[in-house]
């Protein structure tokens, strides 16, 4: 057992911290969020330069051959900086999915492009009636003369506003809710019949809804084999869950630090408010939540690459449910302890709070994952 990052990982962490302090402070972030793109193209270029976009990919595609612990390290730092760039979508969700299941041609076309920062992708896997259920797919994919014809809607596609390609889950057989019959297809943004409706998210990034009206995709657009895509998508989403747990852990630490500073400097009744026991004990609870959440983020990271779906389900659902609750506790306490300053846009505190809250609601909230985890419990195990 080893609970620390390696020397190499610590060096990367240090580089990231310096980058965040220099090029990604809260004011700069405001500017990135308000820009037409919704994030910083320059930061994205720097991520490519630092090798962040190459982390999980094999060396033959210019990658660095890293694992989910490397991603954890990056996401913790991205959490502290409230990073807006489409890293989760492009690298963690779509890039890794393509690495695992893409054809040789797909991999050699896309992975080097991702590594160089030239292509961004988004996963379109959720639908309105399915809530968090990835198997609830109504969007249809019909094979016709060697091509695929896609029709339907996809909701809340993270980073979908700017992605140049989408990975779309669509039903080529069976009924919504069936595990079989789901196919995954690569659709370029400019495909005929595809409408992309972009919008801002609560934390200042961009997402989109997709309307597909007889969108035609070639046979080379299919990722993996037809009808068998659900396990691939679930695996990709589990990796993203681990990444979100790490991001949340980073935010929790940052929020705790900000709140602690506030308790030591804000004066009322002639003394620092951190001298009041009612507030001290809330802060102690926040520290405990931070430690426990970090442990869960580690559990999530070390299981995220597992090919055993049952093992992943237990670890990832436990982690997501736990971190969701811990994030809620820390976020709400941080706002409360900041008083009026907690509910204004001016301080980063409310922005951390919003991101933490939305992380819980992404890829299944605490209740959803509690149920998933609970369903794995057996007598005597």
């Amino acid at each position, binding site marked *: *057992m*080893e*609970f*620390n*990052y*390696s020397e190499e*990982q610590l060096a990367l962490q240090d580089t990231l911290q310096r980058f965040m302090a220099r090029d990604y402070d809260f004011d700069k972030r405001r500017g990135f969020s308000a820009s037409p793109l919704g994030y910083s193209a320059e930061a994205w270029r720097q991520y490519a330069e630092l090798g962040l976009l190459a982390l999980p990919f094999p060396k033959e595609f210019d990658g660095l051959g890293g694992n989910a*612990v490397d991603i*954890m390290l990056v996401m913790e730092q991205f959490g502290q900086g409230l990073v807006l760039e489409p890293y989760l979508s492009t690298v963690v969700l779509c890039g890794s999915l393509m690495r695992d299941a893409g054809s040789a041609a797909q991999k050699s076309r896309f992975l080097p492009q991702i590594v160089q920062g030239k292509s961004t992708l988004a996963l379109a896997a959720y639908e309105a009636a399915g809530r968090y259920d990835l198997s609830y797919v109504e969007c249809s994919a019909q094979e016709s003369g060697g091509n695929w014809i896609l029709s339907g809607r996809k909701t809340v596609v993270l980073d979908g506003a700017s992605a140049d390609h989408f990975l779309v889950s669509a039903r080529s057989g069976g009924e919504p809710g069936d595990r079989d019959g789901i196919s995954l297809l690569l659709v370029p943004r400019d495909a005929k019949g595809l409408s992309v409706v972009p919008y801002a998210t609560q934390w200042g990034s961009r997402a989109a809804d997709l309307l597909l009206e007889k969108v035609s995709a070639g046979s080379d657009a299919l990722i993996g084999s037809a009808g068998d895509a659900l396990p691939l998508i679930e695996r990709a989403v589990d990796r993203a869950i681990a990444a979100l747990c790490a991001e949340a852990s980073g935010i929790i630490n940052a929020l705790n630090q900000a709140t*602690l500073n506030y*308790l*030591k400097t804000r004066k009322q009744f002639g003394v620092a408010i*951190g*001298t009041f*026991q009612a507030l*001290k*004990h809330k*802060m*102690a*609870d926040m*520290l*405990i939540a931070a*430690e*426990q*959440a*970090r*442990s*869960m983020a*580690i*559990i999530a*990271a*070390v299981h995220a690459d597992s090919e055993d779906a049952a093992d992943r389900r237990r670890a990832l659902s*436990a982690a997501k*449910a*736990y971190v969701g609750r811990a994030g809620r506790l820390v976020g709400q306490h941080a706002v409360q302890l900041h008083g009026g300053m907690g509910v204004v846009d001016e301080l980063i505190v409310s922005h951390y709070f919003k991101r933490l809250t939305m992380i819980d609601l992404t890829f299944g909230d605490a209740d959803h994952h*509690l*149920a998933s*985890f*609970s*369903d794995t*419990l*057996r*007598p*005597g*195990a």
Partner: protein
Amino acid sequence: MDLKYTAEEDKFRAEVRAFFEAELPTDIRTKLQLGRRISKDDMVRWQKILFRKGWGAPDWPQAFGGTGWNIVQQHIFEEERADACAPPQNPFSLKMLAPVMQTFGNAAQQEYFLPRILSGEDWWCQGYSEPGSGSDLASLRTGAVRQGGHYLVNGQKTWNTMGQYADWIFCLVRTSSEGRQQQGISFLLIDMKSPGITVRPIIMLDGEHEINDIFFDSVKVPVQNLIGEENKGWTYAKFLLTHERSGNAGVGICKRALKKLKEIAGQQLSNGRPLIEDSRFRDRIARVEMELMALEITNLRVLSASAKEKGALGPEVSVLKIKGSEIIQQLAELKMHALGHDALPYVREALDMDWVGNPVLGAHYRSYAPPISGQYFNQRKTTIYAGSTEIQKNIISQMILGL
């Protein structure tokens, strides 16, 4: 970062497990499996078996006859111990007094007392709390007045655990009333056979005799039994409490309790179906299990970091104490709730090993049922002893957060 056990650690676990299978006496194992009362004799017998194997003190350094195991090995040992239903070792001797004696005691004290603890010859208990000094421990008033070659001790200690079995007691006593109250405290070792000591049982809410009041009426204690320096006892006392709390996370015990809870929820019926199939109840188990998954890693992270970076335990053990005590309480509560109205009977004699039950009650009142409600009531102590949860939060905010 890696949470997998190494091949060596797996081998170590197999060795520990094989030892417990071969050497743990069946009668003791059965008592723990069924939650029946265990006696001092059971615990001492087990300590002697461990001692013969060279495992008498899993968390002592080798220089004092301990195993010298690292944090992960200690964790594995404790996990296997709880899972094998082996009794705990006396924490007052091994986990509280011993680290103080090893760090602050003199050579004569170390050479005389430590081997006797290791072999199970001496049973120690703790004299810390007093009727007027609970959370405010430093206000303690039991006095020790130096008279030639001995101290004369007068006063009362309370919440003393298992002192009815003890050969010795380590006590915080007041040797000075000058300056801050922390500055006049000394750490004394007192022979329980000394004239003037009276042990009075306190019956707990589960009906059991686990704790005592101890009265000191002009008890003579040789000055050689002072640990370290006179009036420096508060430093040793805090050091001891940090060690006590580090053991309070009780991950191994919690894992065993969780397994038991799932077994019970698999056997208890609701509408004729196993209770564990009821998702409302199962979700409550799931919540505690998630807390425990996190605590296991937090516990190992925190203890490894303090071993590696500082070579000593620090205030972060308060985090472990708070979480561990909450989890064991929640598990005890869920076991009781799993019983439903079978939690209501109070069959005191059912805690004795020779209880055979009666056929009518036995038809629904299973062998695991008798101790469970009492355990829930008893476990409320865990967020109170060794510094209440509120005191731990004070420590966290002061020592870690700097508030």
